[in-house]
């Protein structure tokens, strides 16, 4: 059963078409990868799904609802969370505070109660803190929970980015290059976590450069090039697809 | 942790103590000023300091010029070994603070600093402060205020120490003189063009009244924002009105005047212009823009005393200014008028006591010469003030002949007084006042108009 469906989605900047006629769907409970050469428009697709960019044409359907024209925060409230390509964090917050920010949508105590800092508000705060700790623990950051995000090493910042997204309690998690720039150990840990995230029932849509990782964890792979879908299938099928191989020729080093 | 903590504690403590230090140390007003007629050791140099305050905006040319003049006056007094008042030699300290431009906060700060901290008892000369704020400081602290006000805020019977030593709303004689000059030349309709400021909001209505008195049909004034630089739209609008005379009543910025005249020339306006306050240098600038014929025969007001002023004392002051600061500038020279009234009052009463001075000023029955002609205080029975607290200053007028500014006439204090009364339509209360107190006596000056009906 598909959770997210893109129907003929396109985005153009003047004459330049970043994405055109893109169609694919992501099944519930899978790790779905979106790959393609540099500049293929992968991040643009993410931006389209999360509403940061408005699609020029087409429809994006999430969980049976058309979200094409929704604002980013509304889409997030529908259950799509995202971790960014760059390390995008609340740099001056501690790790725990970063994650707590992700709890924005969960049980609110109401403005007045918040303002007056009533017991209800304090209790809600306490609950959120516990859950946040759980997520931090899950992502292997419990030792750094009071560290400022800006001071974390790169790998941990990535993990924190994912933690924030997880704190939103998403149904669909978009991950933009979660292992890029990580050493093999860190990268293996991250792969393991992505699996566990999926096992928790969160569908994962992934953009990743490292073919090793993609082939390792994907349940389904979609390949795009120059904003168009050129192939879709299981990892094994994609590995041997001539079109895909052709698209990647000229791409150097890290592609293979 | 603990060490750093104490460092900050010490720092904070030092900061607080420092602030308190200033606070307590500085706030003792120097009381030497109200020593009155204390007996002093004769012969020696100045023993007391007389602090006089002036509140001007130091980001306007007028304010900067006034600062120069007032410091110079103090210098002259001090060079002569101090100001001899009632047998005491006073060293004169002119304290000039920046009042900002119509800024209530800065006005209040400046006044409170002068009055509460420096212990100033006399404020003589102001420019672009907010008089309504000023009186809230000076009145309760019994400080003599001799300033400039365009608004009616300071004209209240309950004020004891407030003298409007300079006011333009009751100086319509000059406007009338100029307007009549143009009427004689055939002007019938006129429009006042002015910056959108307090001065113009108060002043333009009065100008229109004197214009009507002179026989002009005054159209609705055209005002433009204070910081306009491009006057083509203004000129176009004036042109579309098809008037015989344009009056730049209170346009104070020289560059705005030049631009306005240039813009009028550009749109092909070819009737009369009252160019406001210009000086020979500006005239040369204007002529370089519009040619000599365009400006021929214009008439307006003039603050440069050379050529008109007959009092050698005043001319000596001008010479002294040029020695000190170089070429004379018209800006500011008019607005230092209150100083001469103050000087006269102090010399006459031989006292610096505020009550004595105010009493003298409020019953002052004669004019005082300033660099820009006579000025005189008079009563305002129309608003219920029977002491002489408002002023009618004289004005110099010029005509432009062959590309030169020729100083022509002096509008006397008497003319200013009578025209204003007539134009503003307040003849009745004044006549009643005259019946009770007699007419004021004016300085010996030639009167240009016949007001035998008053």
């Amino acid at each position, binding site marked *: 059963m598909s959770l997210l469906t893109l129907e003929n989605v396109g985005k153009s900047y003047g004459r330049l078409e970043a994405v055109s006629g893109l169609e694919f769907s992501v099944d519930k409970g899978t790790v779905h990868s979106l790959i393609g050469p540099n500049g293929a428009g992968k991040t643009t697709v993410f931006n389209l799904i999360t509403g940061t960019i408005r699609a020029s044409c087409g429809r994006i359907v999430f969980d049976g609802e058309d979200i094409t024209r929704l604002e980013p925060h509304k889409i997030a409230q529908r259950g799509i969370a995202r971790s960014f390509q760059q390390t995008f964090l609340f740099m001056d917050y501690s790790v725990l505070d970063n994650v707590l920010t992700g709890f924005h949508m969960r049980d609110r105590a109401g403005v007045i109660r918040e303002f007056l800092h009533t017991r209800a508000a304090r209790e809600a705060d306490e609950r959120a803190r516990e859950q946040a700790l759980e997520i931090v623990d899950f992502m292997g950051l419990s030792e750094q929970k009071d560290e400022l995000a800006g001071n974390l090493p790169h790998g941990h910042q990535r993990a924190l980015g994912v933690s924030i997204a997880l704190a939103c309690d998403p149904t669909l998690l978009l991950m933009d290059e979660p292992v890029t720039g990580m050493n093999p150990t860190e990268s293996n840990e991250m792969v393991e976590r992505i699996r566990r995230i999926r096992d928790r029932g969160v569908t994962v849509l992934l953009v990743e450069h490292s073919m090793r990782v993609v082939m390792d964890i994907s349940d389904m792979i979609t390949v795009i090039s120059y904003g168009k879908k050129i192939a879709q299938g299981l990892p094994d099928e994609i590995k041997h697809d001539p079109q895909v191989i052709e698209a990647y020729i000229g791409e150097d080093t890290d592609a293979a | 942790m603990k060490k750093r903590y104490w460092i900050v504690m010490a720092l904070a403590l030092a900061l607080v103590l420092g602030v308190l230090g200033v606070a307590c140390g500085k706030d003792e007003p120097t009381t030497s000023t109200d020593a009155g007629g204390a007996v002093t050791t004769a012969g020696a140099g100045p023993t007391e300091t007389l602090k006089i305050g002036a509140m001007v905006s130091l*980001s306007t*040319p*007028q304010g*900067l*010029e006034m600062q120069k003049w007032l410091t110079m006056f103090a210098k002259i007094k001090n060079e002569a070994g101090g100001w001899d008042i009632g047998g005491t030699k006073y060293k004169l300290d002119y304290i000039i603070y920046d009042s900002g431009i119509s800024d209530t906060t800065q006005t209040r700060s400046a006044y409170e600093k002068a009055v509460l901290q420096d212990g100033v008892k006399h404020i003589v000369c102001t420019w672009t402060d907010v008089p309504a704020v000023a009186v809230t400081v000076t009145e309760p602290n019994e400080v003599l205020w001799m300033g400039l006000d365009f608004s009616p805020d300071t004209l209240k019977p309950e004020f004891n120490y407030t003298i409007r030593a300079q006011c333009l709303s009751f100086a319509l004689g000059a406007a009338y003189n100029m307007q009549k000059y143009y009427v004689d030349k055939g002007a019938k309709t006129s429009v006042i063009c002015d910056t*959108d400021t307090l001065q113009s909001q108060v002043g333009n209505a009065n100008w229109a009244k004197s214009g009507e008195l002179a026989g002009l049909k005054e159209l609705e004034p*055209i*005002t*433009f*924002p204070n*910081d306009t*630089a*491009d006057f*083509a*739209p*203004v000129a*176009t*609008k004036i*042109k*579309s009105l098809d008037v015989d005379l344009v009056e730049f009543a209170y346009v104070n*910025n*020289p*560059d*705005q005047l*030049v*631009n306005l005249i*240039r813009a009028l020339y*550009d*749109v*092909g306006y070819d009737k009369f212009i009252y160019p406001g306050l210009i000086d020979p*240098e*500006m005239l040369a*600038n204007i002529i*370089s*823009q519009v040619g000599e014929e365009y400006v021929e025969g214009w008439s307006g007001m003039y603050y440069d005393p050379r050529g008109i002023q007959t009092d050698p004392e005043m001319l000596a002051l001008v010479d002294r200014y040029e020695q000190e600061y170089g070429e004379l*500038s*018209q*800006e500011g020279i008019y607005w230092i008028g209150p100083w001469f009234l103050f000087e006269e009052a102090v010399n006459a009463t031989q006292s610096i006591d505020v009550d004595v001075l105010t009493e003298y000023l409020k019953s002052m029955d004669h004019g005082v010469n300033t660099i820009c002609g006579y000025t005189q205080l008079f009563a305002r029975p129309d608003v219920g003030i029977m002491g002489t607290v408002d002023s009618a200053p004289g004005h110099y007028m010029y005509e432009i002949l062959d590309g030169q500014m020729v100083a022509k006439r002096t509008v006397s204090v008497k003319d200013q007084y009578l025209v204003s009364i007539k134009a503003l339509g307040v003849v009745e209360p004044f006549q009643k006042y005259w019946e009770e107190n007699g007419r004021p006596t004016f300085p010996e000056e030639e009167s240009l108009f016949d007001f035998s009906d008053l």
Partner: protein
Amino acid sequence: MDLSLFPQILLNGLMIGGIYALIASGFTLILGVIQVFNFAQGQFYMLGAFIAIAVVTNLGLPYPVAIIVALLATAILGALLYFAVIQWTTRSGFFNTMLVTVAFGTIVAQTAMLSFGSREAVLPPVVPGTLSLGGVTIPNGKLVVIAGAVVVMAALHFFMKTRIGVSMLAASENRDVASLQGINPKRVFWITMAVGCGLCGVAGALVAPVLAASGTMGSTIFIKALLVVLVGGTGSMSGALLAAFVVGIAESFAFHFVGHLGLLVIFVLVAILIFFRPGGLLGKPLPVPGE
């Protein structure tokens, strides 16, 4: 409405529009490329006018030379501002840098106030006389300003096509891309500062024979230029050009029909425009620091 005045009002709008165009495009260039909100823009305009006047009256050089001197002088000052101050403050943030330009503007304005005082300065008209077209008198001086503004804008257009111009645009589009292409950002930045400030200097020099210069001439024109940038869309050069003339003409008409409250009418119109067209007339929004 008196139709005979229509061309006159239009022309007034065109002239002031030309000046707005130069100041606003300089502003939006600096904002786009260096991400510096240059508050001192108006003061550079004032400096340009005074420099041009000084060159003509004190050195006796011809007016076109004066324009070039004004351009170079303000451009050099702009570059100096970058080297001496802005390059040290950009790291500490957008506001800090903006505050620095505010302070710099204050220094320039008050220094001008103290040195020029009430002395206004004018140049004699470069092309005196008027042009009469079907009953409408058009002063030649104004046409010169409009023509000058158009020429400078055209020159700017071609400049943006050169290598350095392209790198400036690239830097405004995307910092990372720009540095990837081997562009030295520092060089791009100081040149941008120089060009942006130089544009104001030229604007000042252009108006020198038409408007008398004074120490206060730069303060409000900057706010008007902001209005232009709002209408044109932040970061859009062609938008700024179009908007400058639109605002100039609207202002000219608003004054004629509404009087001194015309400015308020313009504000309301701009607000309405932005409500319906968030990007301004042509604007594509820039990546804004922190957004």
